[in-house]
């Protein structure tokens, strides 16, 4: 019975794929390459250890299938063979105890179990222990988005890797438990606040893969999904990750900052989420809880980012759900974000007036954002 169900389901699956691709624009991460292209049971094999995991999975599957078939087969056979006919209770005598057979059916499966344990443990160490030459990528998880900081200082909201280049994720959480899960890599590791956790990634296939949070983290847990893109070369990746540059318009930098830091709670399509939408509020008065309405201007945005619990917009209370970004974001970044909000509202492209002055005004503020980079070497305050 087992083999048919997969085939049947696979056909149905195909059909659904056709159907669902039509409304794919509804999905948070609409990307064709991410649609399931693996086998019946698995997503694609995209990491060095994924095929080992799949092997063990299928091995256990077939061992279990055989045992299960025997158990159910015997059960059904007995039910037919020894069924009670005509209400006559006539059990035939047979032994009610046999130590040899008990020991046999205890010990024989144990041998298989030991093998499963051994293979699983070997695969586990392969997945958990990073090689010396792995590059460290700093991962920060927060409600409800991810940011990835690369060795050269670039930051992105999606994970960018280079094919065949091992990476070690050094993960930290700003708030609650999260878990970094890339199904195509078969890799998963919780991100625990108050400490670092590590995950080893060894991509062997280029393309885009899902990255999801699998540890329940609150309201928008299911939206805490992003992508892992594997590039074929370092250069290729650099083009995707390097971004806050003079070439870009300030609002473009603001947009990327928004995606990394704010998109978990604030939408830009006008719909309210955990926080107010950011595309409509610039320059408008906002009703505050227990206070007079206030105009959304430079000061207010800045204050909201650094001290979110001061002025809370009506409907998003009673207390702020936002964590303070104090020490996590530079003044210049706030300016970029403001230009982005202005751009969304008015479509006007605002240039930052005195970039150097802003820069000089808050050089230390950049520091904490980089702190995780040195953390592996034992920074301790």
């Amino acid at each position, binding site marked *: 019975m087992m083999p048919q169900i997969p085939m049947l389901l696979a056909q149905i699956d195909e059909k659904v794929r056709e159907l669902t691709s039509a409304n794919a624009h509804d999905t948070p991460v609409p990307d064709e390459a991410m649609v399931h292209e693996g086998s019946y049971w698995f997503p694609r094999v995209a990491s060095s250890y994924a095929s080992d995991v799949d092997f063990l999975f299928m091995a256990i599957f077939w061992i279990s299938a055989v045992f299960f078939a025997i158990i159910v087969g015997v059960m059904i056979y007995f039910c037919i063979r020894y069924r009670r006919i005509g209400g006559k209770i006539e059990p035939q005598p047979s032994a009610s105890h046999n130590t040899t057979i008990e020991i046999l059916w205890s010990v024989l499966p144990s041998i298989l179990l030991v093998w499963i344990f051994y293979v699983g443990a070997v695969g586990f160490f392969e997945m958990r222990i990073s090689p010396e030459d792995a590059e460290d990528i700093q991962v920060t998880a927060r409600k409800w988005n991810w940011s990835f900081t690369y060795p050269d200082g670039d930051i992105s909201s999606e994970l960018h890797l280079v094919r065949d280049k091992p990476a070690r994720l050094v993960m930290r959480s700003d708030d609650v438990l999260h878990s970094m899960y890339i199904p195509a890599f078969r890799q998963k590791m919780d991100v625990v606040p108050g*400490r*670092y956790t590590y995950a080893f990634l060894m991509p062997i296939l280029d393309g885009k893969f899902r990255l999801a949070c699998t540890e329940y983290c609150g309201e928008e847990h299911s939206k805490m999904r992003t992508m892992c893109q594997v590039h074929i070369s370092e250069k290729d990746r650099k083009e995707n990750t390097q971004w806050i540059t003079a070439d870009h318009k300030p609002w473009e930098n603001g947009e990327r900052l928004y995606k990394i830091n704010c998109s978990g709670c604030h939408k830009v399509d006008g719909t309210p989420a955990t926080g107010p939408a950011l595309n409509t509020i610039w320059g408008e008065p906002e009703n505050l809880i227990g206070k007079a309405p206030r105009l959304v201007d430079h000061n207010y945005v800045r204050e909201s980012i650094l001290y979110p619990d001061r002025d809370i917009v009506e409907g998003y209370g009673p207390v702020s759900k936002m964590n303070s970004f104090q020490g996590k974001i530079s003044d210049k970044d706030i300016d970029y974000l403001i230009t982005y909000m202005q751009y969304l509202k008015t479509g006007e492209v605002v240039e930052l007036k005195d970039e150097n002055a802003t820069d000089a005004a808050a050089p230390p503020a950049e520091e904490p954002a980089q702190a995780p980079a040195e953390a592996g070497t034992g920074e301790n305050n």
Partner: protein
Amino acid sequence: MADHHDHTSFAHPVSVKLLVTVFVALILLTILTVVSAGQLPRPFGLWVAMGIATVKAALVMLFFMHMFWDKPFNIMAFMSSLLFASLFISMTLMDTGHYQDTIDQFPREPVAQPAAPAQP
């Protein structure tokens, strides 16, 4: 009325003398542990203190709690709690010990001062 009180095999009154002796021993051990606190080099102080506590606990259990005369099953039941508690402690200790450095290395930001000092 019942006719049981002639052959009460399950009452084991312990003599006053024994109880008082145990009490005196307990007090002496208490004095010993207080006095010895801070007098011994590093790891031994803890061991001696816990050793004395264990001896005291044993005295209380054996004589005050009548374990000396109790049914083996009751003793086994109670001792199993210690076994499982130590299992809990040892496995957890072993695990947290291994990842403690990832906590110690973590640059934790100080939390804002609590809003108000806690009331009792």
